């Protein structure tokens, strides 16, 4: 037996409208589910940070009554810690209050303590201590466009953060404001939306204001990004200087998800939804679509998925792991969660009848970290 096969296991964290569930597996087919953690609080953001010889799960939790906060666990959910003074709190003088943590993004392995967060109201934050304390990015907070940014249906938030290996190029996507880019590690920001349609605005090609739903970086091609927009699927090959449509071949250009492969160039996944007014899988038939040629063509993947499914998949309710082949995971607003151990070719159901799935994240971890029964 391959010793690595027994040394590694998989963790899938499922954030829902009413709590967090954790699933573990040794083969990505049979899953053991535990939870809920944080029952009756929504969990819209999760990161599983495996850098620095530690597996830390960070979760953005929001109670309707008691507000938002960040917890972390270094023992796969056995215990949770909330920094005494809060990990993310708006500083004096901003006259703002944290509404929701939409994104928690561990930086590159070469910067093991750095974790970014995207929040509502639209803001980007950076931690250098593994996500225990974050500092507000003032360049974006004080941006002159701020008064013109709007709110999507889910709120006004920075929901996607992509940092290049150097740490200097940072892309942020916000609803609704579009894509903004920093070339100085986050000190200053400029909109980069050329080629992305904002058909719902008087000027359909504005400098900013696009309703981007998710962006992700190509794993191996420097400067290449993918974006799923409010109608429109795009690729940029020049660090977002310009975008071109890659929607041809998809059953719909609407959706929320954009995933990229952890290592391979040109591979990305989307989960199309029919249209603005009908936010369901086209014809009620749920499918993931994968490109292996940077959007030139798409392959429909639905093996193992239900015959009929009318629930949407939200922007962070999908994830990949770092294994080979890559695992693909997603959850629906109907509370079903699916996993694929072969890059989407076949799916198995991990859980069903959970509350609305808001976020999933998966990682390869040492089997020794799992509870004894696993």
């Amino acid at each position, binding site marked *: 037996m391959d010793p690595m096969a027994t040394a590694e296991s998989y963790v899938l964290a499922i954030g829902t409208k009413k709590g967090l569930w954790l699933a573990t597996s040794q083969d990505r087919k049979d899953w053991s589910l535990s939870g809920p953690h944080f029952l009756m609080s929504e969990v819209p953001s999760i990161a599983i940070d495996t850098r620095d010889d530690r597996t830390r799960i960070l979760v953005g939790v929001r109670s309707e009554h008691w*507000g938002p906060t960040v917890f972390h666990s270094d023992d796969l959910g056995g215990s949770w810690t909330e920094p005494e*003074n809060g990990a993310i709190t708006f500083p004096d003088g*901003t006259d*703002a209050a944290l509404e929701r943590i939409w994104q928690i993004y561990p930086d590159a392995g070469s910067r093991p303590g750095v974790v970014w967060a995207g929040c509502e109201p639209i803001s980007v934050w950076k931690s250098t201590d593994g996500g225990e304390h974050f500092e507000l990015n003032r360049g974006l907070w004080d941006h002159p466009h701020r008064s013109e940014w709007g709110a999507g249906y889910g709120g006004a938030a920075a929901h996607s953060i992509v940092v290049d290996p150097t740490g200097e190029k940072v892309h942020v996507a916000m609803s609704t404001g579009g894509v903004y880019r920093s070339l100085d590690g986050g000190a200053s920001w400029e909109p980069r939306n050329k080629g992305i349609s904002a058909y719902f605005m008087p000027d359909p090609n504005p400098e900013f204001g696009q309703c981007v739903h998710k962006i992700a970086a190509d794993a191996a091609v420097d400067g290449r990004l993918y974006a799923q927009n409010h109608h429109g699927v795009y690729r940029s090959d020049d660090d977002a200087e310009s975008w071109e449509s890659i929607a041809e071949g998809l059953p719909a250009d609407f959706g929320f998800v954009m995933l990229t492969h952890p290592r391979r160039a040109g591979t990305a996944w989307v989960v199309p939804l029919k249209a603005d007014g009908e936010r369901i899988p086209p014809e009620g038939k749920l499918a993931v679509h994968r490109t292996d040629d940077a959007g030139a063509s798409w392959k429909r993947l639905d093996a193992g998925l239900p015959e009929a499914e009318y629930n949407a998949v939200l922007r962070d309710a999908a994830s990949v792991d770092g294994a080979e082949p890559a695992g693909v995971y997603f959850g629906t607003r109907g509370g079903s969660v699916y996993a694929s151990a072969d890059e989407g070719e076949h799916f198995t159901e991990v859980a069903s009848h959970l509350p609305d799935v808001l976020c999933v994240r998966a990682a390869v971890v040492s089997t020794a970290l799992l509870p004894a029964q696993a």
Partner: protein
Amino acid sequence: MNSGDAMPADSVISVVLPSVLQPLAGGQSILTAPAEAAVTVEWVLDTVTGGYPALSRRLRDETGSVRRYVNIYVNGNEIRRLQGLVTAVAPGQEVLIIQSVAGG
């Protein structure tokens, strides 16, 4: 200050916590603030949550506003119907914190 401190009842203001928040106050159900004269609800909250920052964040956001679904009662009246955080509380009175009945 906590409920274990022995002070005359008419020289303290008691803040009664719902059970869900008590773990954030060291397991206490009642926190007390010493008061010789009438003070504001804001002062009482600042005083009793000063040592419990996580509890403080559950009740009020960074701007100091009481969270939307947190209800605070003085003498049976919700402070939004009185003078909000500047509602006066007299020594011997009780401040009751109750989560609103909301959600689905």
